[in-house]
C-alpha cells in the first residue's frame, strides 16, 4: 500500500473545498447551496484528518466529529428556514429573496 503524503491529502481537500465553493457560487437552488456548504465543511474535515494523521494525533479526527455535529445542527435550522422561504416566496431560488439591498 503506497502511503500518501500530507501534501496530497491537503490538495485533495482543497479540491473538494473548491468544488463546494464553486457550487455555492453557481447553484441557484437553495438546497444545492446548502449541500455545497456541507461539501466545504467536509473538505475542511478531511483536511483535519489528514493533518492529524501527519502528526499521528487523534485531534484531527476529534475535530471532524465536532464538524459533523455542528453541520447537522446547522442543516436542521437551514431546512426550517428553507421551508419558511418556500412558503413566503413560493420558490427555492436563493436569489429571489433580495428585498433588502442598497
Amino acid at each position: 500500500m503506497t502511503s500518501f503524503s500530507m501534501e496530497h491529502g491537503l490538495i485533495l481537500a482543497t479540491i473538494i473545498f473548491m468544488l463546494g465553493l464553486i457550487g455555492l457560487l453557481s447553484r441557484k437552488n437553495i438546497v444545492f447551496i446548502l449541500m455545497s456548504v456541507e461539501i466545504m465543511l467536509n473538505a475542511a474535515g478531511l483536511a483535519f484528518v489528514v493533518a492529524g494523521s501527519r502528526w499521528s494525533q487523534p485531534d484531527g479526527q476529534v475535530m471532524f466529529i465536532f464538524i459533523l455535529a455542528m453541520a447537522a445542527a446547522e442543516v436542521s435550522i437551514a431546512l426550517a428556514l428553507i421551508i419558511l422561504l418556500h412558503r413566503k416566496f413560493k420558490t427555492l431560488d436563493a436569489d429571489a429573496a433580495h428585498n433588502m439591498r442598497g
Partner: protein
Amino acid sequence: MLELLWMVPALPFLGYIILALFGGRMTKGISAAVGVGMLGLSALITIVIAISFIASPPEGYLFLQTLWKWVDVAGFSPAIALRLDPVSLVFIFIITFVGFLIHLYSVQYMEEEDSTWYARFFAYMNLFVGAMLMLVLADNLLLLYLGWEGVGLCSYLLIGYWYKDPANGAAARKAFIVTRVGDTAMAIGLFILVMAFRTLNIQEILRHVPLVWPVSSQAVVITALMLLGGAVGKSAQLPLQTWLPDAMAGPTPVSALIHAATMVTAGVYLIARMHVIFLQAPEVMTIVGIIGALTLIIAGFSAITQFDIKKVLAYSTISQIGYMFLALGVGAWSAAVFHFMIHAFFKALLFLGAGAVIYALHHEQNMFKMGGVKNMLPLTFWTFVIGSASLAALPLVTGGFYSKDLILYLAFTGEHGSKLLYFAGLFGALITAVYTSRMVFLTFYGHEKTHLHNRPGPVMEVPLIILAVLSTIGGFIELPGTLGHFPLFSNFIQNILPSPGSGEGHEGIGTELMLQIVAAVVAIGGVFIGYLLYYKKPETVQNFKQTPSGQSLYKFWLYGWGFDWVYDTLFVKPIDWIAQVNKSDVIDLIYTAIAWLTRGFNRMFSFTQTGRLRWYAMGIAFGAIVAITIVVFL
C-alpha cells in the same frame, strides 16, 4: 493762552456730537446756532492763540500739547498730541475762519432742507472742520492720518449729502475711493517710516531723516514717492484728480469749504510738513513740480470747456493746487503756503458767490442758462469779480497776483527751479485768466435767461464781503522786492520751513521786475482773450466747436482729458467683471466636486449591495483570494 489749543479741534467735534445725537429733535435755529457757534468759538480761540503766538512765540516757534498716549507698541508710541507752529497756525486760522464764514453762509443757503437734514449738514460740516484741524495740528503722522481720513470721510458724507440721487452717491464714493488709493500709498510710506525710525513723530522724523538716509537713497525716494501718492490723491493732482469735478455734487458751501479752501490743500500741507524727506529726494521734488505743472495746464484746459459753473471752479481748484505743487516742487515752501492762503480766500469767495447765484436762480448751475446776473445781484457780482480778479491774478490789486507771482518768480530763480516749470506756470496763468473771464462774462453779462428766484440775505452776503476784502488785502502781507519788499508771511513761515534759497542775491531786482511785468501782461492778455472769445465774438468759439476736430477736442477737455474713461476701462470694469464672474466663489467648486465625488462613491458602493445571497458569497470568495494572495505573496 496757547494751552487752549486743544479746544480748537475739540469744539467742532463737540458740535458734531451734539448735532449727531440730538440733531433729529432740534429746530433749524438751534442746529445752526450749535453748528455755527462752535465754529465761531473755535475761530475766536484761534485768533486769541494766534495773537499770543505771534506776540510771544514759544521756543523754536513750536508749541506741543500732548493730550494722551494713543498707541504704545514695541517702542512705537504715537500720542494724541497737538503741535502748533507757524505753518499749522496759518492753516488753522484759515480753516476756522473761512470755515466759520462758510458755516454762516450755509445757514441761509441750506434753509430749504428740513430740520433733520439741516442738523445733519451742520453735523458733517463740524466734523469736517474738526478732522481738518486734527490733520494740521497733529504732531505725528498717525494722528495726521486720522485727520486725513477724517476729512476724506466728511467729504464723502457731504458730497453724498443729497443721498437720494444715486449720482451723488456715486460721486461721493468716487471721491472717497480715489483718495483712498492715494492714502494707501501714504500708508505704505508710513510703514517705511515706522520700520526705519520706530516713530511717526514729525519732529523726530525731520531730525533723523537727513542723518540716516543719504540723499537719493532708495528708502528716502520710495518714502517720498509714497507720501506724494497720498498728497496727490487728497489734493486732486495728476493722476488722481478725477474725483474732484464730480465732487461738485455736494451742496455749494461744501464745495467752497472742502473742495476749494481746505481739504484739497492737505496734500500741500503734507509735503510742506515733510519737506525734509523731499529735500533728501530731489528726484521726487522734480516729480512734484512736474505733476503740478502738468496738472495746472490740463485742468486749465478742462475749465475752459465746462458749462457748469461749479465745475469750472472745480477745475480751477485743481489747477491752482497745481501751482502750489509746482511751488513745492521748486522748494518754495512758504510760497506754496502763501498761495494756499490766498487761494482759500478767493476760491471760497468764488464758490460762495457762485452759490449765491445758484441759490438765486433756483439751483441752476449751467452758465449758458445764466446771464445778466450782474444787475440782479450787484453785490454778488462785485464780490465775484474781485474773486475772479484774484484768481486771474490781475496785477497789484489782487492777492492772487502776489502769491502766484511769488511762485513763478521762485520757479524761475530758485535753486530747485527750472525754466520749463516757469513757462508752464506762465502758460497756466494765461489759461486761468481766459477761463475766469469766460466764467464771469457768461454768468453775469448778457441777457437774463433764468429769472430770479431767491435773494441772498445778509448771512450770505456778509461772508462774501469779508472774503472779498481778504482776498484783496491778503496779498499785502507778502510784498515782493520790487514793491517795497515786505516778506512778513515768508519770515513767519520760514521759522519752520526753510527758505527756498531764492536767487535774490545774484539774480537781482531787475529779473524780478521783468518777470512781474510778464506775468501781469499774461494775466491781462488772458482776460482780454476771454473778453473777445466769450463776450465780443462768441461765434468764433461756437464755429470752432462745430468742426469735427473742435468737437472732439471740446469733448476731450470737457470730460477731463479722458482720465475717467481710462480708469474705468483699466480698473473699475475689470474689478467689476471679476467680482461678478466670481460672485459665487470658484473655490467653492472644489468642495462641491469633493461632495459630488463622495456621492459618486456612495452610488458605486451601493451598487455592490445587491441583496443577492450568491453575490455576497462571491464577495467572501473574492476576499479570500485577496487575503491569501496578500499573505502568501507579500
